[in-house]
């Protein structure tokens, strides 16, 4: 059973989406909330596996909420919901600790798939986001002290490179001569290293600078 918590500020959507998730086999709604102001309390009580987080909400922003949740509950996977493919914001959310995003106009089937994918470690990265992640790893290994910094392994780098080119998991698996589930495993690791690195002081500073300048 995957336990799901939902943060969404539009009432009808919140209700219908919870109903849909509840009716899906293998998923369990633990709660649906209009804002993330009490996110930590909610996490403590609900203990979800996956959080669906609206990127823009009244009260504290989705990105801020991701950062707080991840700091206390690193094992919770967070899926961002966004109206537009706003790359800068999505990237910021991913750096803050989100493991994927979904556009709000996606079909319910796609929504449910994404929840399941994220619970397994990470949703597929779009080429644009993958590129941002890759440049971040390339540009920031000098910014952090060695002991705090988690470098990408050569295979992970290769996988990320393939994602930048827009290749599907199947083609990535072919090209790297690994299985599809291994691709998933590497992706999960990329997300993890990104989150860990982003949490270190030096990089979060550099990241903030990068975000404000873009």
């Amino acid at each position, binding site marked *: 059973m995957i336990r799901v918590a939902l943060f969404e500020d539009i009432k*009808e959507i919140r209700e*219908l989406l919870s109903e849909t998730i509840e009716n899906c086999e293998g998923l369990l709604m633990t709660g649906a909330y209009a804002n993330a102001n009490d996110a930590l309390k909610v996490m403590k009580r609900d203990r979800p596996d996956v959080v669906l987080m609206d990127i*823009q909400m009244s009260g504290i922003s989705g990105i801020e909420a991701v950062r707080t949740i991840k700091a206390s509950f690193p094992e919770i996977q967070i899926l961002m919901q966004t109206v537009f493919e706003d790359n800068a914001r999505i990237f910021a959310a991913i750096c803050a600790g989100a493991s994927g995003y979904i*556009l709000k106009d996606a079909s319910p089937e796609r929504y449910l798939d994404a929840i399941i994918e994220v619970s397994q470690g990470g949703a597929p990265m779009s080429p644009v986001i993958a590129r941002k992640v890759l440049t971040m790893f390339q540009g920031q290994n000098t910014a952090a002290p060695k002991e705090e910094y988690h470098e990408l392994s050569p295979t992970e780098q290769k996988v990320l490179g393939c994602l930048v080119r*827009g*290749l599907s998991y199947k*083609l990535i698996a072919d090209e790297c001569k690994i299985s599809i589930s291994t691709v998933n495993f590497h992706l999960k690791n990329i997300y993890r290293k990104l989150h860990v690195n982003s949490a270190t002081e030096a990089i979060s500073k550099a990241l903030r600078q990068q975000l404000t300048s873009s």
Partner: protein
Amino acid sequence: MNTRIATLLFFIWLISIPSLAQECIELGSSKVSVSVGLKCGVLEDSEATLTLHSVQKIPFKKTMSTIPNSGYTASVVWVKINVLKKGEKRWYLEIDNPRLNDVTLYVIHEKKLVYTQKLGDGLPFDAYFIPDRIPIFNLPLVSNQSYTLYLRAVSTEDLKLPLTFWEERELYAHLAGKNLIWGIYFGFILLITLYNFFLWFVTRDSIYGHYSLYVLFFGAFQFCLYGFGYQYIWSNSVFNDRSHIFFLGLSGVFLTYFSLYFLDPYKRFPWLKLFMKTAAYVFAVGFTVCLFWYNFYINVVFITAAAIMVGIQCYSAIGLAWAGSKMAQLYLLASGALSVAVLVVGMKNLGWIPADNQDYYLMAGSMFEIVLFSLALGYRLRSMQLEKLRQQQVRDEISTNLHDDLGASLSSLTMLSELNRRKIQKKDPELAEMFGRISERSREAMRLVREAVWEINPHNDTSEEWVDRMVTFAQDTFGARQIEFELLIDDSLRHEQFPIDQRRNFFLIFKEAVNNIAKHSGATHAKVFFEKKNGVLKLLISDNGHGFDIAQATEGNGLKNFQKRADSLGAVLLLQSSPQSGTCIQLTFRA
């Protein structure tokens, strides 16, 4: 001086009785210069029949102004000066008017002609004894003897005779000082011209071009008017007499255009645009005609026309300034400075007020004007920057509102109908299909909003975002059809700056190609390759679909649009298609 008094004086001068005895000027050894002033007699010969012989028998009128001035006239003017030479110094007579065509000096001693010399810009400059743009006569006078000097002068321009006797050493000091002032002035003109030219070159804002040319031609006008053209460039060629009108006309045309751009008075005075442009053309025709046909009264016509133009421009500027336009106020101040100078010089030339130092009035007036105009241009630049900033803010606001409000509403609409579709699917399949259609439509609307937000959001003016947009589009379109794809995009393209319209055309071509593959090719795999090499951008889009018959497809609209877009981009479009190898589109162009 009041105009009424000036006019009164002018009439008094006309009817004044001939002087009985004329004062004598003493060129003594203690003096270095003597201004002739009122100590001369004047005779205007409108028939141009008098000779040196006959003129000696006629009484001269005593001059009423310190500078004998006949304005613009076809008459011959005679001046008579009595001189007593003392001491051993060498003396010269300067006539500070380089526009005299023909001026002859006769030196009479005891009723005999002892010396004569001819000057004026009708003669080649080489004939000048003292190499300066103004006529300077050498006076070989013997000590302790009195002479009577007669000057006979003709000019198609203003016939005025500012006369001064100079001792040799002082003359050279005086000329050097004058030329220094003129050098500074022309340096100033050149500097402003070049500065505005470079501004135009960089900004391509035509107002700087017009201003630069206006200043240049106004400088050229003075260069001609004050005899520098004669001295340094064309000597006594035909162009000499008419050159100042030619350049004044040119500068007038550019001033008019400059004013039109600067004041932009069309809204308040719609008739002005037509009038000013027409006037500019009339000016243009006028000065061209002057090159072929010229007479002294052209000057009067031109001064009048220029005064009317300045008047109208001032009138429109006053209107705008009154309405609170700061730019118009500065403009008014600037053109006011020049207008005053032009008015003074015009009255001096017409002989209404004393004619001394006329060149410095124009010089100072135009310098004030140019400095004030430069200030006004700076102010204009600043207000344009502010306006741009404001527009940017509005764009920001619009795109944020579109993004947040409209986007959020549309996405909730999509989501609501999608969720309802899923909920009702089993109970009422027909209604479920309706919901499906609603979500499809709102998704489409969402896509349009996303494009619109992208277009107006100023942050997307950088090409980094632009390349990402291509990637996202390919991902969305191919992803929706389960087409495997591969993007190979040169990273250096992200730093490329494209003009916006070029970027739009390019993106539209890209979109259409990607859409065609997704909808029609039946491909399972697509490749996008985009690179820049040696300044040439190359886009390659290929698929493994079933291809199409290019000859047949050329008839249709799809390919025509493609070609049209490629043409407006200045790009070369190559198409290859076959059932075996699929379709390949290659687009090469220079950014």
